[in-house]
């Protein structure tokens, strides 16, 4: 149930994000979800794409520093307290969240939250047990 995420190093300078996005665009890579974590000097652009291999190839060719890692996605009901419910389960089980980012699907019934925790496998297991829906990779890629 894990989802592949690509993390890209960006200097905090004008035009750098654009350059990376253009590189991916030219290679016909569609981005499903993204977030940026930044400091005053650099940022990390995290993206989820259906064509991971194609994206890696394009980035490599473009001389971009990137890294591939696992995250997972949960579906939470699009209403107040929806996300809190999922996070409480993790907190109760003493699992730290490293970061997360959310987006709303076209159908807008559920919000999708991409999560990275200390222990992804354990997180998926306990969330499932608590009845929280884990969105399979296939579904994420075709959002």
């Amino acid at each position: 149930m894990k989802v592949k995420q690509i993390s890209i190093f960006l200097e905090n300078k004008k035009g750098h994000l654009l350059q990376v996005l253009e590189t991916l665009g030219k290679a016909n890579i569609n981005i499903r979800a993204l977030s940026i974590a930044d400091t005053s000097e650099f940022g990390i652009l995290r993206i989820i794409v259906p064509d991971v291999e194609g994206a890696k190839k394009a980035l490599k060719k473009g001389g971009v520093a990137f890294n591939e890692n696992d995250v997972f996605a949960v579906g939470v009901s699009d209403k107040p307290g929806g996300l809190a419910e999922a996070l409480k389960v993790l907190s109760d089980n003493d699992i730290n969240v490293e970061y997360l980012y959310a987006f709303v699907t076209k159908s807008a019934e559920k919000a999708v939250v991409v999560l990275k925790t200390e222990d992804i496998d354990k997180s998926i297991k306990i969330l499932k047990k608590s009845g929280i829906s884990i969105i399979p990779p296939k579904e994420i890629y075709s959002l």
Partner: protein
Amino acid sequence: MAIIWDQKAECMSQKERAVIQLERLKKIVNYAYENVPFYKKKFREHKIKPEHIQSLKDIEKLPFTEKADLREGYPFGMFAVPRKDIVEVHTSSGTTGIPVVTGYTKNDIELWGEAMARALSMAGATRDDIIQNCYGYGLFTGGLGVHYGAQKIGATVIPISAGQTKRQVQIMTDFKSTILTSTPSYALHLSEVAQEEGLISKIKLKAGVFGAEMWTEKMRDELEKRFKLHALNIYGLTEIIGPGVAQECLQKKGLHIAEDLFYPEIISPDTLESLPEGEKGELVLTTLTREGMPMIRFRTKDLTSLIRGNCKCGRTLVIMSRITGRSDDMMKLRGVIVFPSKIEKALLEVKGVEPHYQIIITRPHHLDEIEVQVEVSQKMLSDEVKKLEEIRKKIEQSIENAIGLRVKVTLVEPKSIPRSEGKAKRVIDKRSL
């Protein structure tokens, strides 16, 4: 009329001086050979004996001495006299590795004082002057070197060292200091503080004796404009004696080397052959009269050129141009000797770091700032900012441990540091020296 400390030594004809130089050279070569095992061994390896020195040109037959040789002899291996005859020691400013130690006999201290008295006189110093000496007192040769020279002249010395800038400015104003001895960058800082305190117009400095770091004509103009003084260049090095090896006179056409005491040559750092007059190369110095630690053909690694001709000041001493660089990669940052190769080694000790980096030196507030830009490699990268920050700090720590100075490490994108064919340009010095 220029003030000249030792009219005879400084103004004699070159012909007369050459006679004295040769006599002293023969004597010192023999003295070093007989008293320092290092020289005896080295001369033998090169199949050379003191009696082979029959002309000044014969000096070229002698092997060079390098900083590494002095380190090998640490601490007292290069001394030519029993330790009890050494009355003072100093060391180089390097904070890492083994420092270079130099030992002075009573006569050497006397010699140092003479050389420095000549230097300060070139800046117009007499017993009427008040010398504010901002060079550090201690193991560094700067402070005491100036001190001994000033005492010889009979000037009033303010042995204040560097630091406490506001107090410096107050004292400079109240005591009516006439000569400032400091690094040129500290002098600039002093001028700024004097300006802020509203005291700059009350300062009576007539000359500044600036050295211990590389500087430029642009900086001279700036210092002269701010303080309305003559900004003059001084040169020296621990291995030879300290400051006083060479000094600029008020003509500001370059530095007069006290060549009857310190014999200069210019060599090509590549072929090690002697270069003709006027050509730029590495300065090599031989101490002609030192007792405690004679230096034979010491490679300074400083790049300059020598020019003869009579100076308007009346001195006939050879003139060396302002030091414009080094034949090795040594830099001086905040007065500390730093080799970029050390920085490279330190950053490569951090896992995942590749040797694509650049060192950028700036001087935003009269203090050197060092930035090391390191390209992010695939191996270093993570999806978490925290982990990248950790690596960045680790590199900073590793470099600080190696060179003893705080640096700022910036992570940059791959291939963003220009690649060059052959020797990479690792250091970008943006200091407006």
